[in-house]
């Protein structure tokens, strides 16, 4: 018996799913599929990992393009995303693939450049490989037709070996398709058609010799995870290498004072615990003020506030890190000091530290 399950009766597929309450009302609860299934389409094994729909024009009431993610595959020198795109039956007009994607700098003309693979645990995003050559299906080779699914491929940098699944962000609408399993090997059988219909075979992807020409580092982007404390005192921006914490000075200090308020203690204790757990190297604490007052007084206040924060953090942060306190006065505002709200944003203390084993 063949290992894969065969899929038949497409006409009853949706009805069956809806009858089980799996599609329709509760379909979105199924967000986050990771396991591939394989469908026999005209004799070709077709993996189906997720379906998605994107707005062609970016607004409600615009045309909708549907699609299927068929695989994120490790090949020699790259990672290849296979997906298919088409129009629903009630759309009578052909559409061009370029309408779905923005053109990004650094890519060959006509290359599909507006798709991103996201490794959330690793805090890394992967853009398509870029260069003078297109490392993807060319947009002009893809015609979106009603009731047809045309296959496209896009090559990305090689993923680290321990990446088991990624999210896919598709097109100018940044449509997220979460939790796609990463598998090995290009899809076969291949055909000469650069954008065959699903079931006709799979397009040839870039060869290793061609992939060796590109610099994958240009396509690898460190992501930032963002958190803010529920008491509105602290905002964290974390990459795989470091944490930037921004503390609201109005919570930490009384107006024009460098003495820590009672409310500051909990916020700083939480931060110190994280530094103790995974911080390394030098922790840099920087004070900032708004533009109210003289440059000299603001500089002094910012230095005193940074020193106060260091004094509170250091005893709780363990011995694996060192501290440096700096004041920048009003010289580095986040926003224009044009309103009380903006000035409040500018009154802050930042704490930056490197982390061990960040990301994955």
């Amino acid at each position: 018996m063949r290992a894969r399950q065969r899929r038949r009766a497409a006409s009853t597929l949706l009805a069956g799913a809806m009858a089980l309450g799996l599609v329709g009302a509760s379909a979105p609860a199924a967000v986050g599929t990771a396991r591939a299934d394989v469908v026999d389409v005209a004799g070709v094994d077709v993996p189906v990992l997720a379906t998605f729909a994107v707005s062609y024009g970016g607004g409600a009431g615009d045309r909708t393009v549907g699609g299927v993610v068929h695989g994120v595959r490790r090949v020699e020198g790259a990672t290849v995303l296979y997906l298919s795109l088409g129009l629903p039956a009630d759309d009578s007009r052909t559409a061009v693939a370029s309408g779905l994607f923005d053109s990004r700098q650094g890519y060959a003309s006509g290359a599909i450049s507006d798709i991103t693979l996201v490794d959330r645990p690793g805090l890394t995003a992967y853009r398509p490989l870029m260069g003078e050559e297109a490392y993807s299906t060319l947009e002009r080779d893809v015609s979106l037709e009603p009731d047809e699914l045309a296959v496209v491929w896009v090559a990305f940098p090689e993923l680290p070996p321990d990446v088991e699944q990624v999210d896919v962000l598709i097109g100018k609408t940044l449509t997220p398709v979460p939790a796609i399993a990463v598998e090995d090997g290009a899809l076969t059988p291949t055909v000469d058609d650069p954008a065959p219909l699903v079931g006709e075979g799979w397009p040839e992807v870039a060869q290793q010799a061609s992939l060796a020409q590109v610099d994958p580092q240009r396509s690898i982007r460190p992501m930032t995870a963002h958190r803010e404390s529920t008491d509105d005192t602290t905002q964290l921006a974390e990459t795989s290498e470091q944490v930037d914490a921004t503390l609201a000075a109005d919570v930490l200090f009384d107006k024009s004072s460098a003495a820590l308020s009672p409310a500051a203690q909990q916020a700083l204790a939480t931060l110190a615990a994280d530094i103790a757990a995974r911080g390394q190297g030098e922790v840099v604490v920087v004070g900032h003020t708004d533009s109210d007052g003289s440059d000299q007084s603001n500089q002094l206040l910012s230095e005193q506030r940074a020193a106060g924060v260091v004094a509170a953090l250091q005893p709780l942060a363990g011995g694996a890190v060192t501290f440096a306190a700096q004041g920048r006065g009003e010289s580095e505002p986040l926003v224009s000091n044009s309103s009380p709200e903006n000035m409040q944003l500018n009154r802050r203390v930042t704490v930056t530290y490197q982390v061990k084993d960040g990301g994955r």
Partner: protein
Amino acid sequence: MRSRVMTVAVAVLALAVAGCTSDDPQPSPTASRTAAATPDGQTVEGFAREMLELATTSGVDEDLGTASGPVGKGTVDVRVVAMTADETGSELVLALTGATSSGDMTDWSASRGIYTDVRGIVVSGPESAWKLKAYTIPDEEHKTPVDCTCSRFPKTTTADDPFQVRALLPPLEDGTSSVTVEIPGLDPITDVPVTWR
């Protein structure tokens, strides 16, 4: 009614369709695109038709919480469609309706209109000390956070055609059973149940 953004769990789909029979071939739009059906498989046309229907048919009836408020020149109604989580991350899906003529949702980016995505939305558990936001992705110079792991907000919304937006977020704390969803300018949506995968 058509969802603008929908992903479907194939594992779930497989469960739903296993053992079904027969398909319904349709004329191919072009002769060159026609493929024959195999005796026990789907046709090219039948597969495409069903997948496209599945991808683009509404899945937005779920109602896990709502909020309404002013957006641009009109008002928008927000309904939480799904809030799912596992150890690697969490996902929020919202359906937007309303009579906005301009669809100006720049406040939702929490960046004074610089970005056109919903990175300003935050999610928090009742016991958590932290609110979660979408990840940001920088440009090639690694300086400007040009993208996020979240949808761009729609250019327009309509009263009768829900538009889905999503945000991929960091993991929730283990055991979080409900969350509060905060959208800039709207009242918080509380007690949104979380489905753990």
